[in-house]
């Protein structure tokens, strides 16, 4: 049973769980197949489970007899360091229907550290979490162009 779900929410214009972070939180060496992403005590919210998160963030009107799926979200903080390394399978993707293209390295990533915390709030006790192991399920490092960049720079040749 899922007990926590940390995410920053959906922007009013629909951008999903994606928020500005400092430029120096990410370092990419694409030619070497390496990247690093790190955030420390980044403010998010705990929605406790993903259905609760989607319903609340999507302003979904529940039919009679459906839900609720969880309590109100409460403020939380997450920290993590993620390393992408190695040069695995390289794939070139061009999808004119979706309007994107890119060159992607499918390889491994490793979570070097991961933790989360929240103060007691909303009837919930305080909570802390510390990861002790990680297993890569899937990772990707790529250069992508989409939307207007896809149509305007289709033959830019800078995917590699």
């Amino acid at each position: 049973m899922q007990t926590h779900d940390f995410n920053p929410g959906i922007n009013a214009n629909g951008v999903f769980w994606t928020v500005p972070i400092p430029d120096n939180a990410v370092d990419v060496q694409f030619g070497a197949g390496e990247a690093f992403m790190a955030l420390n005590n980044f403010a998010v919210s705990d929605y406790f489970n993903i259905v609760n998160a989607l319903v609340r963030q999507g302003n979904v009107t529940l039919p009679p007899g459906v839900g609720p799926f969880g309590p109100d979200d409460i403020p939380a903080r997450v920290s993590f360091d993620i390393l992408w390394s190695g040069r695995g399978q390289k794939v070139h993707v061009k999808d004119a229907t979706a309007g994107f293209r890119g060159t992607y390295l499918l390889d491994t990533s490793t979570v070097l550290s991961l933790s989360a915390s929240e103060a007691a709030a909303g009837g919930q006790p305080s909570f802390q979490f510390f990861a002790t192991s990680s297993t890569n399920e899937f990772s990707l490092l790529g250069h992508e162009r989409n939307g207007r960049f896809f149509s305007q720079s289709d033959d830019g040749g800078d995917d590699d």
Partner: protein
Amino acid sequence: MSFSDPRLTILNYQGHVHPPGISRRQFLGVTASATGLALGAQLAWPRVAHADPPGTGTPKPIPGGIKPLPFAPNALFHVFPPPNTETTPFPEPSAITDFNGFVGISHVKGNGVGITGGGIPDTTLTYDIDNRFMTGEFIGTDGRHHRGTFGFI
């Protein structure tokens, strides 16, 4: 990122109204077919015409996405689950559109310990994260070119 108690069975999503115990990855994954440290940023910025100087801006969502809620079939969320080497068609990794830059996805599972109410670790938990970054140039809601770095968290 999500945490769950491994002592409880994680159920596969079957399209019920109440999908208990489903992880973020499972939820996004099975619904895809329904429609989706101190660092020195040394980025090789892609060549782009009419690029303005770096600045703040609000990105726009990708046009497509998933409709994962069976009780709200019209609720569209502008994201696709992480692909894998066998996913066809390859779902778009970025969550923002009019974007030209680098993207990373890390889908990782693992174990950890939880501490409730302070004190010593009192719970063994599993976690499942799908974290991404997008860094590069984008055209914002203001119609202008910007450079920025974004985290999908």
